[in-house]
């Protein structure tokens, strides 16, 4: 007599599905922030009457060592205008925001060419600053 072997149904446990989905969500969220420049060292200048910067695809940063970064990648000022224009593409006016993050002690010889390059590329410049309670000059 032949004894039938027992068959077992094997199923993937569904209890951890929620966790897996959540982790995947966070993973893609971090990937989406791949152009992040939050690892760079800089201190914003302080000013009063600031507005919300809004969302932007382009971020130009000058760090505490006066190095220039475009979306977290170090570049030279000579190619900045061209690369910003490339990133902005055919974006309509009003949505061409470029965030400019400059270390508060950076010198004019570093940030002025960057500002000019952004303007040449047709970007709408937004200086990222920290809210100050002390009034600015003349106010």
């Amino acid at each position, binding site marked *: 007599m032949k004894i039938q072997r027992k068959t077992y149904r094997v199923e993937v446990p569904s209890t*951890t599905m929620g*966790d897996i989905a959540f982790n995947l969500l966070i993973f893609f969220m971090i990937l989406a922030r791949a152009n992040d420049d939050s690892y760079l060292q800089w201190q914003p200048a302080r000013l009063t009457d*600031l*507005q919300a910067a809004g969302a932007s695809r382009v971020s130009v940063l000058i760090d505490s060592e006066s190095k220039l970064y475009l979306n977290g990648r170090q570049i030279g000022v000579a190619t900045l205008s061209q690369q910003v224009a490339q990133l902005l593409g055919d974006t309509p006016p009003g949505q061409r925001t470029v965030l400019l993050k400059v270390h508060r002690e*950076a010198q*004019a010889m570093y940030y002025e060419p960057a500002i000019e390059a952004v303007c040449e590329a047709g970007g709408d410049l937004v200086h990222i600053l920290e809210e100050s309670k002390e009034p600015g000059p003349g106010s």
Partner: protein
Amino acid sequence: MKVPRSTKLMVEPSAVTTGDIAFNLIVFFLVCASASPDSGRRQELPRSETVAQPAKGQHVEVHLTRTTMAVNGDVVRPRDFTPRLRMLLSGKVRPEDRVVIVKSRPEVPYHHWIAATAGIEEAGGIITIQREEEREVRLPQ
């Protein structure tokens, strides 16, 4: 004798998901820590190609050094900077007349520059940066 059965059982949360919880907490704080400041100041600067070379003496000029601000050559105190510009720009209606040329020494720190340019905008001026270009001069041999 009948011993009453205790119904108060110790219920512990399952330890299997502790790793997941810890991981999620790490990621949550990582994302929070990487949030950058999102407040700022919008600044409109005319494109350098479109800016016509201004005639000397026609526009207001602001000279910045590391610690000082000068309007048309006169060093002014920070609190007098905006009122002085407002006075100079009063009565000027056309945008081309409200152009304020900003000339900065190479060592001017950004916090000084942004305070000055914010003051110019507050006074109703249109900022134009004028940089001293480095030129290579070849001496005849």
